[in-house]
């Protein structure tokens, strides 16, 4: 469609006579942007600037904020809770971006190459739907389901372990500070997996089947074809998925709120939950604003870096 549209535009441009038709005032389209721009100003720009400004102050949410310059940020550097929350964020990136991307790639390729070809697309579609189902579940509900499955007494996981004779493996999955973070990670893999899978399966449809057939004739096994043909072909999708999932991992809040409330003893605290409690439980608004500003800067830098990487990769493909 792009090609025809561009051709059409060029053709009409060529045959246009400069005489009778007056040049269209292009800017009047800007009026259509007005409602959206005003709304974004009120709901996003102003709150964002306020939050940034407040991060340089000491403020309890009432009265006048007191300007303290960089004091909040200096305090953050010495705050073990702050560093711990960002360390846990890295674990979340593993659970929500790295693992789902790798597993999603293998699953998507297996569904597309094996199942759809040998057992029909219907079975592939049903399996894909199973993997995607957790993605439509509200995170609060997923949290309820899992906190109850992982409960120490009478939870399904412990009951299952006991039933198959592995009673000694039973754990207080969300209550043990050494295990809680890994339990939350496991839940997040379950939540996130469907997204990369669906994106990759859509991307695989672009891969020219002749490439695979040629490689197969040359005696390349499945793994080699996956590595040398499939992976390079769906690189754009991989970049997009990694970007989105990494950002989602840095923002994770609902799961932590419902599963562990950041506990036990801060073992699963993440920046967004840390800023939430600082805002609304400790009412140290200035400090909370500083935490969220740091988070924002990290996310924006990461997004720009990924964007750059992506455009460079695309240009590399074209060259």
């Amino acid at each position: 469609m792009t090609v025809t549209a561009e051709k059409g535009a060029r053709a009409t441009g060529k045959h246009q006579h400069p005489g009778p038709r007056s040049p269209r005032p292009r800017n009047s389209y800007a009026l259509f942007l007005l409602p959206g721009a005003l709304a974004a100003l009120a709901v996003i720009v102003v709150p964002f600037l306020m939050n940034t400004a407040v991060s340089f102050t000491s403020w309890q949410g009432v009265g006048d904020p007191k300007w303290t310059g960089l004091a909040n940020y200096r305090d953050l550097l010495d705050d073990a809770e702050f560093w711990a929350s960002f360390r846990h964020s890295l674990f979340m990136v593993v659970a929500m971006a790295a693992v789902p991307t790798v597993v999603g790639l293998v699953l998507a390729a297996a569904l597309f190459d094996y199942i759809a070809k040998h057992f029909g697309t219907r079975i592939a579609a049903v399996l894909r739907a199973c993997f995607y189902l957790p993605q439509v579940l509200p995170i609060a509900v997923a949290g309820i389901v899992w906190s109850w499955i992982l409960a120490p007494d009478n939870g399904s996981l412990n009951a299952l372990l006991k039933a198959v004779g592995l009673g000694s493996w039973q754990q207080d999955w969300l209550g043990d500070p050494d295990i809680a973070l890994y339990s939350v990670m496991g839940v997040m893999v379950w939540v996130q997996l469907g997204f990369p899978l669906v994106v990759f399966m859509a991307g695989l449809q672009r891969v020219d089947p002749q490439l695979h057939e040629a490689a197969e004739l040359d005696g390349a096994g499945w793994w080699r074809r996956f590595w040398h043909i499939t992976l390079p072909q769906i690189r754009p999708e991989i970049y997009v998925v990694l970007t989105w999932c990494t950002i989602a991992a840095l923002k994770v809040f609902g799961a932590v709120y419902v599963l562990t409330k950041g506990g036990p003893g801060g073992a699963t605290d993440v920046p967004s939950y840390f800023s939430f409690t600082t805002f609304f439980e400790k009412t140290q608004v200035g400090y909370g604003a500083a935490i969220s500003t740091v988070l924002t800067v990290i996310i924006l830098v990461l997004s720009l870096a990924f964007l750059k990487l992506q455009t460079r990769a695309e240009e590399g493909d074209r060259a």
Partner: protein
Amino acid sequence: MTTALRRYPVLIALCIAALFMVVPFLIVVVNAVKSPAEYSEHGPLSLPKGVYLDGLKDFWQRVDYGQKLFNSALISGSVALLAAALSVLNAYAIGIGRIKGRTWVLAFFVLANMLPQETLVYPIYYLSKQVGLYDTRLSVIIVFTVIQAAFGTYLLSSVLGQFPREILEAARIDGANKWQVLWRIVVPVSRPTIGVLLVFFFIWTWNEFLLPLVMLISNDNQTVSVALGVLQGQRLMDATMTNAAALLGVLPAIVFFLVFQRTLTRGIAVGAVK
């Protein structure tokens, strides 16, 4: 022959993996219809002997679940419609109007979409108190309309950027003004993409947690997610109540999934490639 032998293990492995994804849903359904006595006696893994619905009924009445469903539907439905309308207007100016500085405008919407809500939540909480919108469903509708429209603008702009110029040109020659071109031509032609946006905005807003948690404190205004999340956070629910809460929370999601499955999977593909 060798491939035939290798095919089935792959199928079986994938089926087991898929089962693992679905098992939590099955456990929820099985346990939500057990009586408390049966649950404490046989644990979570036994099959129910009969269908016991009192737990569900109790829970429904205790949290006034009908009201929560209505709130969620009202907020998500309004946001979906308003955000789609706003996205269309924005994208019309950027993708078809090609206004000056559109790259920057588009970059702004992309960044706005990536911004963590934590950085907006306190000022929004504070400002909404100042203007008397705190603890109203309207405040949540306004905020999410803008946040979702940021994504919609980004997606629709690239779709409309490829809109066939001949059609627009023909309409203009026939004397249609910009509004008529928008409503009579651009919107009908882009209906599939707008449909995808409506579905996504609805489900995303339904699933939102942080902002509704902060903004909606009274029982009558809370959404399903907030009500269930707060109950869970208070650690006051016994096993039967948790089961009921889980099932009632899962059911709408499954309904959306079955109704919108095609749009969802197609939409994700569209979104990722743009």
